[in-house]
């Protein structure tokens, strides 16, 4: 199935932050519900966390020279 994929199986592995990220989303949801200003911090933590997990997954070198 991965015959034409650029990455190997090992390279595609993720760090397991998913449960933590979902907990951050839950914290955001609860903060929004109760009107606590902490919602902004939880939301940014979750968003940055998602971006970090995605960045950790990208091992393909970017050819940014033009």
């Amino acid at each position, binding site marked *: *199935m*991965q*015959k*034409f*994929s*650029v*990455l190997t*199986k090992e390279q*595609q*592995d*993720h*760090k*397991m932050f*998913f*449960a933590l*990220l*979902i*907990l951050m*989303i*839950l914290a*955001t*949801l609860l903060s*929004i*519900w109760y*009107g606590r200003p902490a*919602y*902004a911090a939880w*939301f940014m933590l*979750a*968003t940055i966390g*998602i*971006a970090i*997990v*995605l960045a950790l*997954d*990208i091992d393909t070198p970017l050819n940014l020279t033009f």
Partner: protein
Amino acid sequence: MSRLYLIAATLNTLALTFVLVAALIVQFVLGELPCPLCFLQRIAIMACAMGPLFLLAQNRRSALTHRDLAISGGMSVLAALVGIAIATRQVLLHILPGDPGYGGTVLGMHLYTICLLVFIGHALAAGLMLVGASMTESFSPRRWPITNGLFFAFGLVVIINLIGVVMEAGWHWMLPPNPVSYLLMSS
């Protein structure tokens, strides 16, 4: 104008909840285990819903303000951008000719392709709502009883996803790229 925004936020949340429920059906009913990138897209969809849910929650306390619209729109756009990056990443992984892609298809599209369209649609909707804020000076307070139900339903879906991810990954640090079993049960 308040009513229009509340309807938009409600529909937005319902659409995102529907996508998450559909993903859970694919996982638990059809038995197709989500890959790590699929899970990441689900979490981004959850983050996307924080924008419209924020608007609905603020309306419970007082009349909406332009500040509320700005915060809601900002959260929506940020989450949608992250989601677009993840979905594009997965589309590009399977873009080469002959690659069958990951998992089954719905309406002829893989789930990550549908996710990409959902994220783009969400960003567009948030943009429209932000621009639309210029059409009114102030908002009137309005009762919106569906808010509690929406929060409860969405929270439930998030918790089910949390259980799902723990079941699939077990207590392992790494999740296989092509999961074939629930590691919590098999280890």
